């Protein structure tokens, strides 16, 4: 709302006031001060609850409440012996849609330029002056917040105005020349035949004030704000009038505004002939009355403001203050409840005058949040290991999802995206990390170890699926070349290492490795981690065609961990006395077909073991000249422990023998000769 200081001074003396500070302390910060000649124009931010502040008078009232200075109300026209407007009718279809509608006929209105003072003020609001009639309707909108609508009487067929819902199939060409199709949700001003204006939004094409000295009708009305807002949205027309109407009118406004309009019109154009207006309404609403509980105000503000001080503040708003109630004038459309009075008193008293209180009350303490704790532990550990935490938008394009998953039907689409690049909710942070990898490669960074805690979204059967996911991505080499190292490019076992590290860190046991089938990964380098049948993580090498699609070099590895599941399987820590008895170690170098999986081998070893404790470590894999073509040698170290006793050599030999036998049986494995 643009507020001209020169104009404002008509209603309240602002000399000596630091207006920007006062307005801000009332809750209406000045965003900009514009110099217009000798005048200062303040552009103030008005919150949605205060349509009254979209008017000069409203701003003056607010300053009066804050400062106690005297308010001068604008002068209005008094009807005396005007002619009646015969043979004309105004009908309001529904008083919920249109609580009040006033039409007033004016004759002998010359279409001439406005006087300088009027033009200046219209300009201060940012509008171009046109002619007296148009400028004055605009003036009233700014001065009092009530939009008026003026149109030629000759435009109205059948000597009648109907304020009604449009009928499906009706259409109108607006003042801006756009044709709009209407339906029952749109409130219109119609004559006997057709809609001539969209109520509270904009006039019809013909309604512009053009011809000289003919008869005009001034409309001053109060329309249902929801209806105006819906209509404005549906027809996609936003005007100064619709902006004001959708924030709410009030019952006495049309009458007050009309009388003010006529007063100024008569001043500027004394020859104008005014008819008695036709004023249509159902009943005069009861004024809002709010219970005044001064203790409640003190309690909520946390400060002991005296009764007198409270009453003084409320009276400065022109509220009618009684012993235990306050009557609110109807231009304040935001006050209904006792809490509303707390705010009014607080604002004017000044929030700065309320002391601070810091207390940690009884019965309140910060509870533990396991997910938060887990995320922070993993995050800090990864950072300690040289990983960079990322935050991406978590939104992706249809093109990307189509490329990776083939089909996008399972994914969550935004109906009204800003652009197609961020139209879908991502199923995993990994997708956006790919782009981060690309951007860092472009900056010549080639040791990329990044991760993000984000969410993954998909459509579920009955509801949307929203999972907490940790994505980790690797590209290039783990470290830069230093004097002490010779880094090797990342491969599948680096990303597996990250996953298994996190499982250990979070104390998750019995995670099994399985072949994965995740679309992001190459089929033969895709790994799934499961506990029982529940998958808790996937990792693998990004498909080459996906890397090519993003125009990134090949060789990216990624990992997704389902954090909710990880948390489910995180075990409470418990501790045991370590075995007091020595372990017995045996090394076995086993030759078998290359296609044998270590995991399978391991399962057999554990299943055959009958001793209290066995730990198996794979310490070498060999393929080469010394073993037959198509075979590999895997060397394992077996650590047996009796836990409660010392193991005897021969019982270990028996078990080792059984293990070797079973491996031979299952995989054709045999001991490698020295």
């Amino acid at each position, binding site marked *: 709302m643009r507020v001209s200081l020169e104009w404002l001074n008509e209603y309240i003396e602002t000399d000596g006031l630091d207006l920007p500070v006062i307005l801000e302390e*009332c*809750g209406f910060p000045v965003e900009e001060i514009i110099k217009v000649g000798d005048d200062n124009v303040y552009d103030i931010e008005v919150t949605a609850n205060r349509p009254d502040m979209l008017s000069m008078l409203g701003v003056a009232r607010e300053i009066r409440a804050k400062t106690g200075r005297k308010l001068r109300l604008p002068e209005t026209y008094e009807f005396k012996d005007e002619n009646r407007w015969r043979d004309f009718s105004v009908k309001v279809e529904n008083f919920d849609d249109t609580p009040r509608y006033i039409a007033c006929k004016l004759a002998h209105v010359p279409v001439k330029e406005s006087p300088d003072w009027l033009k200046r003020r219209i300009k201060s609001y940012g509008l171009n002056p046109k002619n007296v009639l148009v400028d004055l309707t605009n003036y009233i909108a700014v001065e009092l917040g009530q939009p008026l609508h003026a149109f030629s009487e000759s435009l109205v067929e059948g000597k009648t105005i109907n304020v009604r819902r449009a009928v499906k199939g009706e259409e109108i060409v607006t003042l801006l020349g756009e044709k709009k199709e209407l339906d029952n949700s749109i409130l219109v001003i119609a004559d006997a035949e057709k809609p001539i204006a969209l109520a509270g939004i904009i006039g019809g094409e013909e309604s512009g004030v053009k011809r000289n000295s003919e008869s005009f009708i001034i409309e001053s009305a109060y329309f249902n704000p929801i209806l105006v807002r819906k209509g404005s949205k549906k027809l996609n027309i936003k005007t100064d009038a619709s902006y004001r109407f959708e924030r709410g009118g009030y019952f006495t406004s049309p009458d007050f505004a009309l009388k003010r309009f006529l007063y100024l019109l008569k001043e500027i154009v004394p020859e104008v002939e005014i008819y008695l207006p036709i004023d249509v309404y159902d009943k005069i609403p009861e004024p809002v009355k709010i219970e005044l509980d001064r203790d409640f105000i003190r309690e909520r503000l946390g400060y002991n403001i005296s009764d007198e001080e409270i009453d003084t503040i409320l009276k400065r708003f022109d509220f009618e203050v009684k012993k235990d109630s306050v009557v609110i004038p109807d231009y304040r459309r935001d006050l209904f409840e006792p809490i509303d009075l*707390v705010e009014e008193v607080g604002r004017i008293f000044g929030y700065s005058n309320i002391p601070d209180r810091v207390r940690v009350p009884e019965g309140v303490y910060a509870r533990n*949040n396991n997910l938060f704790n887990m995320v922070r532990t993993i995050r800090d550990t990864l950072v300690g290991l040289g990983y960079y935490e990322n935050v991406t938008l978590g939104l992706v394009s249809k093109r990307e999802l189509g490329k990776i998953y083939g089909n996008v039907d399972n994914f969550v689409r935004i109906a009204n995206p800003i652009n197609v690049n961020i139209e879908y909710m991502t199923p995993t942070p990994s997708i956006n990390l790919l782009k981060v990898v690309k951007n860092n490669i472009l900056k010549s960074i080639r040791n990329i170890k990044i991760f993000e805690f984000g969410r993954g979204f998909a459509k579920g059967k009955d509801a949307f699926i929203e999972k907490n996911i940790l994505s980790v991505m690797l590209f290039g080499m783990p470290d830069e070349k230093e004097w002490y190292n010779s880094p090797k490019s990342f491969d599948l076992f680096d990303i597996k290492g990250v996953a298994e590290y996190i499982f250990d860190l979070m104390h998750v046991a019995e995670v099994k490795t399985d072949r994965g089938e995740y679309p992001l990964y190459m089929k033969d380098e895709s790994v799934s981690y499961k506990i029982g049948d529940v998958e808790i993580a996937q990792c693998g090498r990004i498909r080459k065609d996906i890397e090519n699609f993003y125009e990134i070099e090949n060789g990216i590895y990624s990992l997704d961990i389902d954090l909710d599941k990880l948390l489910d399987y995180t075990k409470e820590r418990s501790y045991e006395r370590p075995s007091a008895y020595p372990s017995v170690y045996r090394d076995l170098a086993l030759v078998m077909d290359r296609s044998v999986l270590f995991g399978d081998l391991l399962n057999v070893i554990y299943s055959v073991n009958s001793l209290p404790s066995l730990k198996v470590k794979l310490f070498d894999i060999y393929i080469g000249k010394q073993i037959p073509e198509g075979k590999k040698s895997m060397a394992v170290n077996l650590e047996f422990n009796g836990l409660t006793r010392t193991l005897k050599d021969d019982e270990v030999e028996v078990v080792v023998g059984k293990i070797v036998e079973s491996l031979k049986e299952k995989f054709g494995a045999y001991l490698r000769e020295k």
Partner: protein
Amino acid sequence: MRDIKELREEILTSLKNASSSEYEALKIKYLGRKGVITSILRGLKEVPKEERKVIGMEANKLKKEIEEFFRQHKVKGAKSYSGKFTDYTLPGRRIFPGAVHPVSRALDEIIDIFMRLGFSIEYGPEIESDYYNFEALNVPEHHPSRDMQDTFYIAGSDRLLRTHTSPVQIRTMENRKPPIRMIAPGRCYRKDEIDPSHSPVFHQVEGLYVDENVTFADLKGILSAFAREFFGPDTKTRFTPSFFPFTEPSSEMYVSCVFCGGKGCSVCQHTGWLEVLGCGLVNPKVFQYVGYNTEKYSGFAFGLGVERFAMLKYGIDDMRLLFENNMEFLKGVIK
């Protein structure tokens, strides 16, 4: 074979003239594994038999003399010398740390401060219903206050992307009785174009405190304490009236400019103040939605943008940097 006597003279002279800091090196030079005396004794087997005995005796005598010297002139920590050359300026063999994202770092600080003040962490879904995101927060459909938050809607559904983490307030109050002190950190979405100070995706921390007799003085006290903890002990706060449908009275909190200390600079547009968060007493209508007794309970709520806090704290002037994840940027600089 050198004359042992000559050698003895030479060694005793050099020991006499040596400063104590040189002892360690000299001890190694003469008595070390590859020292002069050691090598004489070791070389004895190549010496003709007749000389061997004499030289051996002389050498051993000299060895004892030198040992005696070092016994008298205590060598401190002599054993810590390995005797090999070490370039101690070589960089250490190490792991280079990664980096916590600045948004996460700011969030950590915010969360830690509120946890010290007794606020628990609560999470909620990002895909929300209109009820939790708007209606139960007293933002009716078709009310102009909806324009304050331009919303993304989910296609083929009545769901939306939460525009703030305030829905978590409602979800928490539905499940728990007062007293409640909670914060809800998380991602939010608004239909804003990406520019230096806006992003369609951003992080918010919503806070809520409900109990008997919670007042505006509590709101001011807690949030001012938070501001001092986050921005520094000299930080001043100012509260001005504002409007949010879910709070009443509503307020904006300003802090004294973290760059100029309140003197006025380009960041604070020469006002000395920065607007950092919205807050207010919980509107009783919100309590009605969750079935709280509005006579008995009152509370305050607030919401802050984590990106803005991170930018102010770490001197970042473009929000887009936060979402680019350039590793050089994430590393941070020491100023």
